[in-house]
C-alpha cells in the first residue's frame, strides 16, 4: 500500500516537474550561456566572447540610468506600499463593524484582479494632460496651476509610474496583513489595553512584532517587483522609457536590446545581472529584517 502511494505521488509530480524543467529552468540555463556569446537572435551561430557583454554593461549609459531608476523604485515602492498597507490593515482591524471591514478588504483587493497591462492603460488615461482625470480634478478643486503633463516631464514621470505601482500593490498587502492581524489572540490585545497602552503603542509593541513574518515576505516580493516595472514603463511612458530616458528600467533595456537591436547575447547578460541583483537583494532583505521570533504560547 505504502509503495503504491509513493508511485502514485511520483507519477503525479514528474510530468509538471518535467514541463517546468523544459520550459522554465532550461531557458534560464541557456540564458547564462548566451550571456557569454554575441548571438543576434536570428543567426545559427553564436560565438563566445567571454566577459565582453558584462564589461559593456557598466559603460552603457542607458543601463546605468535603468539601474538608478530601479534603485529609486526599490527605496520608495516597498516602503510606501508596506506603510500604507499596514495603516489600512490596522484601521480595518480595529473597527467594531466586521462586515464593513470585509467590504473594504474586497474593494482594496480589486486592483489585484486587473492585469498589469490594463492598469497601465487606465492610469495613462488618468495622467493624460488635456482630458485626464488628474488634471481635471486639479482644475475642479481650483488648482489649475498644478496641471502637468505627468508622464512627459522627466522629473515627474518616474514618480507617476511609482504611484501606479503602489496603487496596484497596496490592496493585496492590506489583505495579507489583515489576515495576519486577525490571528493575533484578542486576550493579548485586551491585556495591553488594560495596562493602559494607547493605540500607537499597541501597534508598535504588539501588532507589528506579531505580523513581522508577513512584512518580511512583503518586503521581498515588493523588492523584486521594484526591480522589474517593465510592463508599466513600456505601456505608459513616452518613448517608451522616457521622456529623455527618465523612466528607463532594466527590463526595458533588456527587451529593447534583444528585440529591437538584435543583441540577444548582450540582453542575456543584462538578464543574468538582474538575476544576481534580485538574488542578492532577497538574501540581504532576509538578513537585515531578521529579528527575534515572537512565540505565542
Amino acid at each position, binding site marked *: 500500500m505504502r509503495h503504491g502511494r509513493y508511485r502514485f505521488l511520483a507519477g503525479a509530480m514528474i510530468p509538471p516537474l518535467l514541463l517546468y524543467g523544459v520550459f522554465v529552468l532550461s531557458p534560464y540555463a541557456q540564458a547564462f550561456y548566451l550571456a557569454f556569446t554575441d548571438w543576434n537572435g536570428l543567426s*545559427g551561430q553564436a560565438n563566445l566572447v567571454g566577459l565582453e557583454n558584462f564589461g559593456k554593461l557598466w559603460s552603457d549609459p542607458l543601463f546605468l540610468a535603468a539601474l538608478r531608476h530601479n534603485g529609486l523604485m526599490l527605496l520608495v515602492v516597498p516602503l510606501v506600499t508596506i506603510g500604507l498597507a499596514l495603516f489600512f490593515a490596522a484601521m480595518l482591524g480595529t473597527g467594531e463593524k466586521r462586515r464593513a471591514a470585509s467590504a473594504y478588504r474586497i474593494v482594496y483587493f480589486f486592483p489585484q484582479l486587473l492585469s498589469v497591462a490594463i492598469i497601465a492603460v487606465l492610469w495613462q488615461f488618468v495622467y493624460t494632460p488635456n482630458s485626464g482625470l488628474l488634471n481635471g480634478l486639479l482644475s475642479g478643486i481650483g488648482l489649475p496651476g498644478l496641471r502637468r503633463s505627468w508622464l512627459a*516631464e522627466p522629473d515627474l514621470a518616474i514618480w507617476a509610474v511609482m504611484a501606479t505601482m503602489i496603487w496596484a500593490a497596496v490592496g493585496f498587502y492590506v489583505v495579507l496583513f489583515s489576515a495576519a492581524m486577525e490571528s493575533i489572540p484578542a486576550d493579548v490585545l485586551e491585556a495591553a489595553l488594560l495596562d493602559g497602552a494607547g493605540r500607537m503603542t499597541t501597534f508598535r509593541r504588539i501588532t507589528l512584532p506579531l505580523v513581522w513574518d508577513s512584512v518580511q515576505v512583503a518586503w521581498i516580493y515588493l523588492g523584486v517587483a521594484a526591480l522589474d516595472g517593465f510592463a508599466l514603463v513600456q505601456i505608459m511612458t*513616452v518613448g517608451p522609457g522616457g*521622456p*529623455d530616458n527618465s523612466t528607463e528600467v532594466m527590463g526595458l533595456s533588456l527587451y529593447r536590446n534583444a528585440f529591437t537591436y*538584435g543583441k540577444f547575447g548582450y540582453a*542575456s547578460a543584462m538578464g543574468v545581472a*538582474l538575476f544576481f541583483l534580485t538574488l542578492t537583494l532577497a538574501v540581504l532583505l532576509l538578513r537585515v529584517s531578521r529579528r527575534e521570533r515572537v512565540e505565542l504560547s
Partner: protein
Amino acid sequence: MGVAGVAGAALAGCVTGGDDGDTGTKGDKSATNPLGVPVDAPLEVVIFKGGYGDDYAKQAGSLYTQKYPKAAIDHKGIQRVGDVLQPRFVADTPPDVVDNSGAGRLDLATLVASKKLKDLGELLDSPSVDDPSKKVRDTLLPGVVEDGTFDGSVQVLNFSSVLWGVWYSKSLFAKNGWTFPTTWEEMLTLGDTIKKTGVAPWTWQGKYPEYMNDPLQSLAAKAGGMDLVKAIDNLEPGAWQSAPMLAAAEAIHQLVVRGHIMTGSEALSHTEAQNAWCKGQAAFIPCGSWLEGEQQAVTPAGFDMVMAAVPALTGSDKLANGAVQGASSESFLVPAKAKNPQGGLEYLRLLFSKQVARGFAESAKALPVVIGATDGLTLSSGLSSVAAAAKAAGPNVFTYRFRTWYAPLSKAFDDATGELLTNRVNPAQWAERIQKAADSVAKDSSIVKHKR
C-alpha cells in the same frame, strides 16, 4: 528576469551551426514560367495582417493557384511576425515568402547580417506579369529597389508606398481662408494667424517623438539636398551639426518658441493627438500617408483631410519645392533557406502585378509601389492628395536609411527631438547629443556598417 529574458533564451535552444547546403528545387524555365517554379511544390506564405489586411496577398495566392493548380498554398495572416518566425529562422526552416511588417517584426538589419535572406535580383530581372517586354524592376516606383538594397544586393521588396508630410482639413482651411504655406517662414506666419482663432496651429504624437522627426529631417533634406541625406546615413563626422540640419532643428524649434503647439501634445499617444486633430483642436499634424486609413472610424463627415509635402525651409533650398520624404513599407522577402524559393519569387512576381496592386489600393486605402496601378481609380480625399504629392515631387523623393540600419541612433534622435519640442534643449544642444550618438555607432565595431 522578466518574460523577455525567458523568451529570448527559449529561442536559443538551437543555436548550433547549421549546414549551408543550397535548399530548394528548381523546375524547368519557360516563357510562362520564367523563374523555373516546380509546378507541384507546395508554397508557404506568412503575411502580416495589420492595418492593410491581407486580402491582397490572398489574391496573389489565388493567381498562383490558377497558374500552378498542383501547388498547394498555405497562407497565414498573422500579427507579431517576429515572435512567430524567429525560431524558424534560427532553425533554418522558414516559410517561402514573408511579409515582415508591423509591431514585433524581425529586425531587418539583423536578418541581413545573418545572411538569412535570398537575393531578389533574379525576380527583378524577370519579365513582369502585365507586360512581358518589361522587367519587374521597371514596373516599380523609383526608390523601391534602393529601399530593399543592402550592400549591393536586393533582399526585400516593399509593397506599399508611404509619403510623409503635414496633414490638414481642407474644409477647415477653406472656411477660414487659409492656404497651405510654401515656405517655413509662411508656415510660422500662418501659425500666428491660426492661433488668434483659438485653434492650436500644431499638435503631434509626442509619446512617440519620431513623428516629428519626419518633418524635421524633411526640412534638412530640402535645405541640404541628397549630399546631406547621404552624410547622415554614412555617419559622417559632424553631419548632425551641419548648417542645414541645425537650420531644420531651429525651424521646428520655432513652433515651440512661438507657442504654436497644442498644450500637452508632448504626452499624447498617436491616437490621442490624431483624434484631437480630427476634432478640430489643432490645424496641422505630421504623419505618414497611412493617417486617413488609421482615422477612418473617427473622422467627421466633411473633414476632407489632405496631406501636403513639408514646406521648403528657405527660398534657396537644394531640393526642388515639393520634394517629399517617401519610402516604401510592407517588406516582402524570400528566406535564403526557403524550401521552395523559386515559388516564393514567382509569388512576389504575381503580387507586384497591376491587378493585385489595384486591389490593394481599394481595400487597404494605401498606395501600392506598382507604377500606374491606381490609374482610373476614384481615390478618397487623403489618398488622392498623397498621389498628387507624389506626382508633384516627381523624381524628388528622398529617404533616409539610418533608421533601418542603426536602431540605437534612431533612439537617440527620437529622445533628443522629444526634448527639443518641450524646450528642454535648444537646437545646438540637440545636434550635439545626436552627433555624439552617431559617433559612438560609427566607433562600435560590433555594428555592421552600410554605405550609400
